[in-house]
């Protein structure tokens, strides 16, 4: 009975999207968002059930006995890994749906809300299905549908050319990436598992098959890394993300950044840990992609002047922070260092959930600022913390968390990343770069937070605190950021369950978990207890001995009139950016090369089009293609 419950969120979300087609008014919008929030809560419940005992549901669609046979049966299964990601989806989906109730009202009358009403629940549904389905072919179908429906959310403001272009770029790039996935899935199903796309079957057969066919291993690895890398916005396939995420409505951006780009991470965990034999080389490859990703994108995030674009770049950076320990973990496991390897994998999952919370929160705060002021320009905004204290507090918490400041959640995962990478020579350089980049992250988020919330604005900006339905989700996420920082026992338990379901044994007895720090081996005191003790005593001191100061205007070296100057966001770290200009030069150069390649492709396309008017040449090309196809198909035994 309880497995049938897996269908309830599907029903609710489908209902919501159909309802969303009905009207474009306020009521429909509210109903859609509230139904989505309910479905998200149900998803959280599914995740909890999944952690406790696992859920499995088999649906026979039809009977056939060809290649399509593997699609006969739609199997839903929630193991602990998918439960972990479902938890992220459920919590963040709940917050963004609730937030959407009020936030989307700003588009009333301006945009066609049906575009949102229909696609938003379907987008949630597709992510849910990807996480619960237990069949690679069905996974591919849901994956493509997710890309398809989410592009409409990116292109929500359809009158803006920028949004349309961003959606187009997003769709084309991820679609091209997904084709690599299709190819690799077909290769797996044809060669290794004989038309069986069931995950359990694949994890039984594939590792042995790949061990005997190492060349296949490398082909599949590169195809999967490209396919998932595009969706996860791994450098060099990242260029769609900084365009697409800022264009979507803020609550959708939060979902895109918090959950959607985590789904490739989920599949990478499935593939590289349970489907593939553990290979040190692959681990190193993933880790180096991770490092390149986090280095370049954070340097680019530092120079952004648009609040949501800064956040988008930082999302890619955090994907780097997730890929780096994943790769290092694979490497260490393959080399036989089970303990550090499992810590690295744990760090990867920990950072995944952390990033979902703080980045979701940051996008929501950016959305609140847009809701009140209509601006994303860091140069223009300023001094909003006085007018929006709750949003200001939430943004500060998230900035602290993303900069990895103790005792918040970002610190725990970053700490685990350093422990696992810095101690082994092979990944030492990766750890060093990650440590440097965390300093840059701090600076970038000081910029984000202070330029919006604390630095006084040049002209008076009209704003007040956002309505309850908008600040409550922000507070919930801020609370989770603090909770996962001071009480890591909870996520660590979930993560070790998730890793256990992949066959990675966590030696929990060697892990001592203190609030805020997970510590291998031993220790005498909990540092954070002391930290919070001191913090509380100082704040008590602050309360008990209030300084009875007067208020004066700021010190302007004795000048009476208003200075009316402030540091523009564009020149926060100008000297640093100029001195480290080489990084940006490399980035620009690669952009330039890419542009050249695109132009080349366009030129070839034009030539082809010109050729297509010529019947003879087209026929001969078709002949050659058919010959190739026959030759290829000859090798396939059906």
């Amino acid at each position, binding site marked *: 009975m309880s497995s049938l419950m897996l269908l309830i969120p599907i029903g609710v979300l489908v209902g919501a999207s159909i309802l969303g087609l009905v009207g474009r008014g306020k009521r429909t919008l509210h109903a859609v968002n509230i139904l989505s929030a309910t479905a998200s809560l149900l998803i959280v419940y599914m995740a909890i059930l999944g952690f406790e005992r696992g859920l499995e549901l088999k649906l026979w669609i039809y009977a056939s006995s060809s290649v399509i046979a593997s699609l006969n049966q739609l199997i839903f299964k929630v193991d602990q890994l998918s439960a972990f990601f479902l938890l992220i989806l459920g919590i963040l989906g709940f917050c963004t749906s609730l937030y959407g109730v009020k936030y989307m009202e700003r588009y009333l009358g301006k945009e066609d809300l049906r575009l949102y009403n229909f696609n938003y629940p379907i987008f949630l549904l597709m992510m849910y299905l990807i996480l619960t389905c237990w069949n690679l072919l069905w996974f591919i179908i849901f994956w493509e549908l997710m890309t398809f429906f989410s592009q409409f959310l990116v292109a929500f403001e359809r009158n803006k050319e920028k949004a349309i272009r961003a959606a187009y770029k997003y769709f084309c790039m991820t679609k091209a990436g997904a084709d690599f996935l299709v190819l690799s899935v077909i290769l797996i199903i044809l060669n290794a598992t004989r038309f069986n796309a069931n995950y359990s079957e694949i994890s039984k057969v594939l590792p042995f098959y790949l061990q005997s066919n190492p060349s296949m291993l490398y082909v599949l690895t590169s195809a999967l890394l490209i396919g998932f890398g595009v969706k996860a916005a791994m450098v060099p396939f990242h260029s769609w993300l900084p365009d697409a995420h800022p264009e979507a409505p803020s609550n959708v951006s939060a979902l895109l950044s918090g959950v959607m780009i985590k789904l490739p991470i989920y599949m990478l965990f499935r593939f590289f840990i349970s489907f593939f034999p553990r290979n040190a080389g692959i681990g190193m490859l993933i880790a180096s992609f991770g490092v390149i990703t986090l280095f370049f994108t954070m340097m680019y995030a530092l120079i952004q002047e648009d609040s949501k674009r800064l956040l988008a770049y930082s999302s890619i950076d955090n994907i780097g922070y997730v890929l780096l320990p994943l790769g290092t973990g694979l490497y260490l496991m393959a080399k036989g260092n089970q303990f550090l390897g499992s810590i690295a994998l744990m760090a990867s999952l920990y950072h995944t959930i952390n990033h979902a919370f703080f980045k979701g929160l940051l996008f929501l705060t950016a959305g609140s600022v847009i809701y009140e002021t209509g601006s994303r320009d860091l140069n223009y905004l300023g001094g909003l913390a006085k007018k929006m204290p709750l949003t*200001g507090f939430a943004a500060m918490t998230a900035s602290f968390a993303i900069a990895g400041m103790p005792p918040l959640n970002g610190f725990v995962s970053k700490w685990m990343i350093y422990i696992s990478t810095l*101690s082994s020579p092979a990944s030492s350089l990766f750890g*060093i770069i990650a440590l440097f980049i965390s300093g840059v992250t701090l600076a970038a988020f*000081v910029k984000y937070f202070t330029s919006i919330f604390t630095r006084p604005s040049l002209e008076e900006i009209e704003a007040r605190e956002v309505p309850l339905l908008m600040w409550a989700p922000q507070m919930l996420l801020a609370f989770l950021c603090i909770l996962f920082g001071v009480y890591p026992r909870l996520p660590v338990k979930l993560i070790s369950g998730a890793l256990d379901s992949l066959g990675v044994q966590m030696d929990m007895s060697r892990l001592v978990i203190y609030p805020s720090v997970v510590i291998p081996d031993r220790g005498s005191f909990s540092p954070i207890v002391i930290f919070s003790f001191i913090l509380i005593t100082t704040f008590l001191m602050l309360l008990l001995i209030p300084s009875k100061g007067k208020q004066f205007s700021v010190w302007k070296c004795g000048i009476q009139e208003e200075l009316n100057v402030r540091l523009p966001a564009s020149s926060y770290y100008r000297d640093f950016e100029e001195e480290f200009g080489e990084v940006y030069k490399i980035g620009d150069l690669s952009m330039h090369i890419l542009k050249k390649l695109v132009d080349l492709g366009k030129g070839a396309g034009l030539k082809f089009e010109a050729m297509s008017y010529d019947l003879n040449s087209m026929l001969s090309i078709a002949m050659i293609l058919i010959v190739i196809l026959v030759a290829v198909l000859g090798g396939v035994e059906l």
Partner: protein
Amino acid sequence: MNVIFMAINLAFALIIAPLIDGFERKVRARLQNRRGPSIFQTWWDLIKLFRRPSIEPRDSVKSFYIMAPYLTFTAILTACLILPTLLPHSLNFAGDLIVVIYMVSLATFGFSIGAFSSGNPYAQIGSSRELSLFMSEELVLAFVVGVIALISRSLSFEHLFPLPLRISSILALALLFVIIYVTSSRIPFDIPEAEPEIIEGPLIEYSGRHLALLLYFIHLKRFLLYGLFLNFILPEKPGIRIGGFLIGLVILSLVYSSLEAYYGRFRIDQAIRLMKKLSFVAFIVWIMAMVGW
């Protein structure tokens, strides 16, 4: 027992940090042919400031502005508990080097948020310089941490101290020596504060108790970094260690303050360029550590 020793460490840090500053002021004055104040002068200044009321600027975001000095001070105090100083007892646990680095970053974070919240343009300039310098230091520091982790295959203080004698470890310590000098905002690198240019930068609006806390933080940070450096070279034997620590403090502050007395201030871009060059050196040191020198 450990608790008592740690309390002694903390009390020592709290008492001695302003005294070191007083001593350094005296040394600098002597080198510049002045008589200089008594070495207790820093303490008197702090006590005076603690008793004064503090003024709040009207444009400030009050909650963050007031929170910042407390947060900064707390972070550095916690770091003092984690790092062994006078006595070799501390909260030791795996990876505590990282925690100390992050506590110092947390202090920087709090410091700059406070400055940005004060609403003063000079403070904003100072803070942005502070963070630019912080990022470029972090690059060198990351390499030094990497080298240290490579040499001793650990990130916890109990395995780190003292560092084994190798070429790479000596070079790494030399780099650490420079970073400590830069981080403690001494004269060629006091660009964020730069009194004649931007009138104390981040500190400009703070007064009374808040200013006292921030000044105290700067002294404690210097003391902490001295302690970090000394821990790497001092032997583990208890008797020698205490004596060595005290002598080391005096020597370090003599060296640092005499360096300070002879230099003018760098511009921010010069300082960042210097850090970038140093990071290349650090990279070479890292390679040396990789090949096992």
